[in-house]
């Protein structure tokens, strides 16, 4: 099966081009680098904020920047994104603000709300539930006669859930313009992929649904970008869904609440960091092309830091959560049981009774 689905690559870990059929402009190269550095800076900052108790449990994605940034960069303005709790590099690239993402981890529902005009669904917390949603949203665009598409993000573990199979099957039956974007980061919490499935690849799961599937080097931002772009263009032409398996690696814990040393080989993580890191390989490539410029890089990093510091300030100075929000968004029109519960609780809080 691995032979049937060879891993597509444009650039190897050393920063050498392995496929020169793509046209890489300096603008694209720098754009991708900036976006990945921005995402990594956010991720590192978030882990630190969690350690300092300034946000709650956080799900880090360091190592997966190319998979997320590359795929999200291929989307167009009105397209739909269905992320999980770990896909902040994708949502950031597609239009979420840094402070929105931080509010989410501060336990604020405001962290689910995208800016106007951005079709970004709240992160899926239950595993794989977003896949049928993406199929449905894509189908709606098709019925409305637009050429918009939907992309759903999910991990390797998610492919064990029924919702994965139902989402793919519906998309295939109805030829929905949707891209199923899998990040195979090797583990679902502590369970390695060999224990998660007997299948050798995720991509082969598309075969059952007669769906085009590709495997791509998930740490090669260009390969991810071009393959996703192809899948999206195909979907826009009305030719149906694609399953993309981006083979990647996450260095750290599943979330800040667990201890990866119990189940993940840390030496191997370190090795991968040196060998296949998505940012490092782009730096190496740029260096070889004579595009590397320390001053430019410093300036980009400074911009990222400033943006993120500003977002932290915004998060920490955000208005206090409003207790009314518990009650006021359950239904469009208030229903009496909830109204009564709300009145009773608020009047008790004000100390009006007893």
């Amino acid at each position, binding site marked *: 099966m691995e032979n049937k689905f060879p891993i597509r690559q444009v650039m190897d870990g050393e920063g050498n081009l392995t496929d020169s059929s793509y046209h890489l402009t300096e603008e694209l190269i720098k754009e991708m680098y900036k976006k990945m550095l921005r995402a990594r800076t956010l991720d590192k900052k978030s882990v630190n904020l969690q350690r300092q108790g300034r946000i*709650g*449990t956080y799900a880090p994605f360091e190592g997966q920047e190319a998979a997320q940034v590359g795929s999200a960069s291929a989307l167009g303005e009105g397209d739909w994104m269905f992320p999980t*709790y770990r896909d902040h590099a994708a949502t950031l690239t597609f239009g979420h603000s840094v402070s929105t993402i931080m509010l989410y981890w*501060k*336990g*604020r*529902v405001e*962290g689910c709300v995208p800016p106007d005009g951005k079709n970004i669904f709240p992160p899926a*917390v*239950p*595993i794989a539930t977003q896949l049928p949603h993406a199929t449905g949203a894509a189908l709606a665009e098709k019925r409305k006669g637009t050429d918009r598409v939907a992309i759903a993000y999910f991990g390797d*573990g*998610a492919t*064990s*859930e*029924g*919702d994965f199979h139902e989402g793919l099957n519906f998309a295939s039956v109805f030829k929905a313009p949707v891209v199923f974007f899998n990040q195979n980061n090797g583990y*679902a*919490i*502590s*369970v390695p992929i060999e*224990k*998660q*499935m007997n299948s050798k690849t995720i991509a082969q799961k598309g075969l059952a649904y007669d769906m085009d599937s590709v495997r791509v080097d998930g740490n090669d931002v260009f390969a991810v970008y071009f393959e996703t772009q192809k899948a999206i263009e195909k979907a826009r032409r009305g030719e149906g869904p694609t399953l993309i398996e981006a083979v990647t690696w996450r260095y750290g814990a599943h979330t800040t*609440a*667990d201890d990866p040393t*119990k*189940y993940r080989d840390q030496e191997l993580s370190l090795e991968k960091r040196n060998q296949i890191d998505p940012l490092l390989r782009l730096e190496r490539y740029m260096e070889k092309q004579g595009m590397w410029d320390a001053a430019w890089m410093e300036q980009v990093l400074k911009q990222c830091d400033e943006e993120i510091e500003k977002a932290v300030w915004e998060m920490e100075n955000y208005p206090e*959560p409003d*207790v009314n*929000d*518990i*009650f006021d968004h*359950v239904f469009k029109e208030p*229903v009496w*049981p*909830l109204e009564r*519960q*709300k009145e009773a*609780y608020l009047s*008790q809080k004000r100390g009006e*009774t*007893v």
Partner: protein
Amino acid sequence: MTTKTMTEVKTNKLTLVQAVTDGMRTMMKEHDDILVLGEDVGQNGGVFRATEGLVHEFGEDRVIDTPLAEAGIVGTSIGLAINGFRPIAEMQFLGFVYPAYEQIMTHASRIRSRTMSKFSVPMVIRAPYGGGIRAPEIHSDSVEALFTHMPGIKVVVPSNPYDAKGLLIAAIEDPDPVLFMEPMRSYRAFKADVPESKYTVEIGKAATLTEGEDVTVIAWGNMVSVAQKAVEQMSGDGVSCELLDLRTLYPLDRETIVESVKKTGRVVIIHEAPETGGAGNDVMALINDEAFLYLRAPMTKVAGFDAPFPFFALEEEYLPTPARVKHAIKEAVTF
């Protein structure tokens, strides 16, 4: 914590989650047919460490890291159970039980009745539940009423380490499916003496934690500790409360509940799940049926709201507090 005192029994000071582990270990040592299945239960020892060490002691054939699929975990456990094993299936959080709901609802709970007892499903589904630990969304759902409403499954909720081990062993020994709900906020809140050997706490029996005359306060799971605080403070104000820890939500302990209400004539029920359709309603219905003429005030509930459990920035507003419980008790006694 519990009313029972043990003499000459070797005990350990354990947290609630350690007592759960101890209950499984005690039973697995004695019975080869007991299996543990779930996400991350092996090497990782479960996300809350409830299965910590079991894989090293009993091996990967008996402590099984499954693929990430709740319907698969429960459905496969049903198959194992009808064919000679006693599975303990772990849901990582009760909020993630929904994919398995069909398997529980349509199969685990009714195989005995569908086959006139030819087949039965002696399995336990363990699930951490409840709010107050700043978990991300959905993790804090307490949806016990979905299961008390389901004919053919027992629902058990310990509130302390002693009960956790004894009830879990009783659940494992039970010939029918049991949902065993573990209050996350109580997992490591305190330690208590837990006998080292095997013992059971009977399913279907409530515990009277404090005796009192004026009002019966009824709670389960983590709400027991909230109720306890309120009851202590009320006794300082001269109100004598009888506190019941239900321990089992299906079947209810009719006798203990009714006897207490006959004595006090007043009832306050506390649960953190949404009020409408909550398990508290069944307690009220039981009292209405069996002790109506003894009531001296309307029965009341302190419950979660009919709203999705909020993001953690607002969770303390959602969860019943000792202040809210005291308020309800005062209303009951001044009616």
